[in-house]
Each structure stands twice: as C-alpha cells, then as structure tokens.
C-alpha cells in the first residue's frame, strides 16, 4: 500500500514542490515510503472503523433496511427515508429540543467556563488545580454514574430535592415543563470541565508585555480584557464553541437513562431518535438517514461558528 502510494503520487511531485523542495527524488521517495509505513497501523484502524462506517451510514440510509438483512434490489428506496424524515412530527420535536439544548447550553457553558477560567488562572498552583479538578470531576465520573445519581436526587418520593424544598411527589423528569430543563442543567455540569482547562491554559499564555503596556496607557480592567485578552484567546473560544456544540448535539446517555425521550417526546433529541429508530423500531435505514442529517446539521453549525469568529 505504501509503495503504491509513493508510485502513484510521484508524477504529482512536479506540481507540488512546496514542502518537498530541496530534497532529491530518491530522498522524497524514501521519506514517503517510511512515512506511510509509520502511518500504516493507524490508517488501517482509521479506514476500517471511521471511514468505512461513514460510507455504510450514507449507503444504508437509501434502503428500507432492518436487522433481518438487506436485499439490494428490493429494498432500495432512494431518498424516501429523508422525505419521511422531514414529515415526521417526532423528528420535528427532536430537532426543536436539540436546538433548544444547543442554544441554551453552548453560550452558558462557554461564558461560565470563561468566567471560572479568568477567576482561577491567577490563583496559586494548588487552588488552581483544585478548582480545575472539581469542575472536571463530573466528566471523569462518567455519564452513567452521574445520571443515575441525578435520577435519585430528582426522584419524586425518595429524591433529596423534593424532601429539601417540600415539593413532595413532584416528578421533575415526568413533567414536560421541567424534564428538558433538568437535562440541560445536568448536561451543563458535565460539559464545563474541558473548556475550563482550555481557558486556564490560554489565559496563562496571553503575552504579559501587551497587558502591561495597556495598563501603562491607562486601560481599565474591562478594556484590558476586551481589547487584549479576548482577541488572544479567540482561537480557544472557537474551539470551545465547536466541541461544546458537537457534545450537546450528541447528548445521549442523559436522555436514554433518565427520560427515554419522554414524557410525550418532551425530551426527544435527534441523537436519541437515531438510537430509538435503530434498536426499538428496528428501522436501520431510517436511523442512518437521521444520522446523516445530524452530521450535516452539526457541520453547518460548526461552519457558522467559524465564519462568525473569523469576521469578528
């Protein structure tokens, strides 16, 4: 495979001399061969378990396909799954809920982690690692453990929340009004760990001489933040926005373990519908179609964020 790659791409060398210029042809060939040998183990895994499933996903989304098996000639339905999808009221509900989760969670997670990051990055090493650790704990504890304990906390009869505030028997996860809110709050606690770590690192790297110069010129603290620190942590903010968006879109364990999309689809999300269609309804073609649409929606959101961040 590596030899082939080297042989096939040799004619291209003349066109793209950029990073191989100044090297003899034999050296380029040797470097390319050895590079692909180093890459080989990783590429095998990458192609087999990321690239191929991507194609399978798109391919199966064109079929009326269930676990029973696939008959390529008979089960081909073209874009029917996609047409059905856009007329499916459950998908509409899931789409709206997912957008609500993203629109509420992403800005609050970003703003709060930036606030915590700026509050703790100037602290001494011990309190800084302590707080960083505390906010990362829910991520490490794992979605299952966090979800089951929250389910107990919110339980109508045995939960500490109702015992504390005296709303005896109120079913937080069983009422459409509060179920989605609870999901968002818990998602929030499991999402801010990584952004805080990133912000602490980014704020620590801001060039001090610029801050000092600004202060000498009489800039206020707020001006220093917006004019000096904010632009230099912009790449981190962009990264935080993108990963938080991707994670919020994929929020699954919380939904599956707490509400199963209920009550009355009040917490149905696109990701949960993918799982539900595949393993409860046994409609794999449809599940893959939703998956493809979800991937496209995430790509659009990420692209918008890049665009907005670039023009700022």
């Amino acid at each position, binding site marked *: 495979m590596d030899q082939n790659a080297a042989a096939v791409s040799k004619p291209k060398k003349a066109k793209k001399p950029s990073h191989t210029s100044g090297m003899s042809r034999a050296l380029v060939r040797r470097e390319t061969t050895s590079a692909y040998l180093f890459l080989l183990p990783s590429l095998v895994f990458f192609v087999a378990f990321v690239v191929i499933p991507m194609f399978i996903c798109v391919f199966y989304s064109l079929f009326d396909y269930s676990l029973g098996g696939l008959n390529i000639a008979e089960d081909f339905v073209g874009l029917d799954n996609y047409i059905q999808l856009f007329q499916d009221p459950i998908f509409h509900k899931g789409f709206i809920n997912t957008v609500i989760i993203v629109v509420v969670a992403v800005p609050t997670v970003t703003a709060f982690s930036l606030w915590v990051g700026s509050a703790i990055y100037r602290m001494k090493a011990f309190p800084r690692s302590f707080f960083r650790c505390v906010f990362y*704990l829910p991520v490490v504890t794992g979605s299952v453990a966090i979800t089951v304990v929250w389910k107990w906390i919110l339980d109508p009869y045995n939960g500490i929340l109702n015992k504390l505030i005296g709303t005896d028997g109120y079913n937080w996860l069983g009422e459409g009004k509060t179920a989605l809110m609870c999901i968002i709050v818990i998602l929030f606690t499991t999402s801010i760990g990584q952004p805080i770590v990133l912000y602490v690192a980014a704020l620590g790297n801001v060039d001090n001489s610029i801050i000092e110069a600004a202060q000498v010129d009489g800039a206020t603290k707020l001006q220093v933040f917006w004019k000096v620190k904010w632009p230099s942590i912009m790449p981190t903010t962009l990264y935080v926005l993108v990963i938080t968006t991707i994670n919020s879109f994929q929020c699954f364990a919380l939904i599956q373990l707490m509400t199963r999309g209920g009550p009355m689809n009040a917490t149905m999300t696109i990701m949960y519908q993918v799982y539900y269609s595949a393993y409860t309804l046994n409609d794999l073609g449809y599940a893959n179609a939703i998956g493809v649409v979800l991937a496209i929606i995430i790509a659009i959101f990420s692209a918008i964020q890049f665009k907005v961040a670039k023009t700022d």
Partner: protein
Amino acid sequence: MSAKAATLKVSKHADLTGTSTGYKVFVVIILILVTIFFLFPLYWIVTGSFKPIAEITAREPVWFPINPTGDNYGRLFENPAFLWLFNIVFISVAAMVLTCITASLAGYALGKKRFIGRAVLFTIIICAMALPKQVIVIPLNQEMTQIFHLNDTLWAVILPTVGWPFGVFLMKQFSETIPTEILEAARVDGAGELRTFITVVLPMIKPGIGALAIFTFVNTWNDYFLQLVMLNSRDTWTLPLAIAKLQGEMSNDFGLIMAGAALASIPIIIVFIAFQKYFTQGIAMGAVKG
C-alpha cells in the same frame, strides 16, 4: 516555573488596576457554592452506597449514613460485578495501549516527515474529528456483525476506539516540537528509521504519550453509547453499562445502583487525580490548533 512567575506578576497588576475586594469576595463565594454543587453528586453516590433502605426511603433527608451497611455491595456482588469490572478495565487498557502505539507512530510521521499526500491526509483527519462520533456507531455495529463477526465481544468496543483520529492529532502536536537537527544527526550516525524512532523520538514525546494514555483510558471507560450498542449479553457487559441496565430493571433499589456507580467511578477518579498533570497538559496541547 515560568507560569508561576507570570501569575505573580499579573496578580500584582490586577491589584494596581483596582479589583475591588467586594468583587473578590463575591468570586470566592460563588466558586465555593458551585464547588459544593459539583461535588454533591459524587458525595451522594459514595454515602448512598452505604445507606440502608430505611434511610433511603426516609421522609426527612438523611445527609450521612447513620447505620452504614455493606448490604448494597453484597447485593451488587450477587451479580457478576467482578467480571463487569474486569471487562471495562480490559477494554480501557487494551484501547489505551493500542492507541498509544499506533498514534505515536502516525503522529511522528505527520509531524516530522515531509512526504507526498501529507496535507491531504491531515485535512481528512481534522474533518473526521469534527464528525459526530456517535453517528457512525450504528453502522459500525453492522460492520462488526457482518464483516468482522466480532459483535458482542470486547474487541467490538476496543477496535473502533483505536480508529478515532484524535490521538494521531495529539501526537502530531507533540512530535512537531522535536528539533529536526537531532533526527538528522541520528540519520548521519547511520540509525535506521525504526531505531531513530525508538531511541530518539520516543523519549522526547513521552509526556505526550502520558497525556494520550490517560485521555484514552478515561474516555474509553466512559464511552457509554459504544458499549451499549456493541455489548448485548450479560457476560460482556461493562460495569457502567451494567449499572445502566440494573437501573432499568430495578429502578427503585437506589442503594444497589449507588454501590455500582461508586465501583464504576471511584477507580477512574483515582486514575484521573493521580495523572491529572498529564491530562490537563494533553487537553491544552490538543487545542493549540483547533
């Protein structure tokens, strides 16, 4: 070291520009309140796992187990909990070792070698990282069943984890910091590619491998969706998956569920705290170029 010096310098200036004491007190109070809120679920898991049923169903909140009991753990181990623990440890360790080996080899090639197709390959990797990981899990399950016949085995979780390109990206970031002169010197001395990698490159990217190892271990342990889809029979369940399943079966036995949650989360928390330094470094390094 330099970070510490910088911190001191900044805090001095922060005082100069006049952050009011009131604001500082406000910050500390909020941080403490939020800390309590964040630590409470963990506290509740651990104390809950020792509470007898009477204290769990009591009408008044019981903040600390008054008559601690080991019953919950007893009931947990009536199930094959050790097997479930073994499964998740095996999956996490195997994924960690394989990822570290393949990613450090590939990351070195991407970071230090100038070869044909490098730019294209790197772009593909970046794009794949922006892909929603969970979307490909269901087609992956079909692939595992029909092509590899590995469905319902631990390898069905391990292999896809190794394929995820984040590790390659992280190791590329670390490999780029190796001075090219050292690699050329090794070549002039007549060292082969593999020997250069083992004797020169590996020692220099050690911190990166540490970061990747802990990162992969924690993320694999907590990748619930992949485990849920791939592992169907009771003998292949992992501990977190088993807790989720038990919760579905006996949703009101909170003592048992908390015992399971404690057993599933305490080991990983210990691992995390022990290697925290590598972990935070790895996250920061992975984000240098987003």
